[in-house]
């Protein structure tokens, strides 16, 4: 879940800010068969990522939300550590996948 969030965040742009519901929609768009991520799973994962320093978060300006007549959003942003952790995980997955394919090659 954490990697999916980081991946979706990076797709939106390394410097872009996002909020919970938007990231849930983006993750669903990446895999059309899945349901929207549940509240508990999503916000628990976001909380962990913030605590691990892979994301930063801030509450948006109350005036902006009031102007648009909606509740305030909690905005998240990918940190450099988050981006690097994602790249590392992607490299590890790619190398594991390559090793697996190699193992099935005929001798």
């Amino acid at each position, binding site marked *: 879940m954490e990697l999916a969030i980081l991946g979706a965040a990076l797709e939106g742009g390394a410097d872009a800010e996002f*909020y*919970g*519901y*938007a990231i*849930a*929609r983006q993750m669903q768009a990446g895999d059309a*068969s899945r*349901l*929207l*991520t*549940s*509240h*508990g*799973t*999503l*916000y*628990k994962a976001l*909380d962990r990522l913030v605590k691990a320093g892979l994301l930063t978060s801030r*509450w948006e300006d109350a005036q902006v939300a009031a102007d648009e007549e*909606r*509740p*305030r*959003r*909690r905005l998240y942003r990918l940190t450099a550590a988050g981006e690097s952790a994602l790249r590392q995980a992607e490299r590890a997955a790619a190398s594991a996948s390559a090793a697996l394919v190699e193992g099935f090659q005929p001798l």
Partner: protein
Amino acid sequence: MNAAARLSAGFARTWTRAYTLGLDTNAKTDRRAEIESDLWEHGTSLHWSGRAALEMALRCFLGMPADAAWRAEQARTGERAAAIIATLLHRAERITEWVARRGLPGMTTVLAWAFIAGGLLLTLLFPFQPEKGAGMVVVGGWGIGAGLAIRWGKTRIPNRPVSGFLALAAGAAPLSLILLATVIAPLAALAVLTFEGRRAWAAWRLPKEALRMSDSQ
């Protein structure tokens, strides 16, 4: 605004209030405000339709274990952890007693309706599409059939207990399979691995100790 969507949002809000009770003010207000914002975004993006109601309810239900786990994580770091754990244990004891006396018959009804509702939901949300196959429709149909079997079995138990229990067991089979796959089988595998690991460790260590003893003699 659809009444069902309002109900789902209200339920999610109430659940959030419940599991954040007793947290320190910052964590509590942050989580509640974040869920409030999510519900608003979700409801608005789907025009507070029936689909929004279903999705919001599903997201809330499916996230409950994660919410509970998150809450437990917060409690561990808080000063009131011991008091909360004691209260929870006390409540768990009372709940267990209630379940044993009254809950089990009621639970079969809830289970039956949950299967029927879940089955209908899957069939509605993922209708048959030739290019994607009929996976969810089959699962949905299975859920509806299981729910009807449990319901029928429960009403039959007072007069025909054998066929009633058989129908109930057949209906509850999907749940049993899920429990088997997610809880019982992994626990059994862990037990076997632990046992085998300890045996292998003992077999490896014994000759070394014997060798050391013969050296010292």
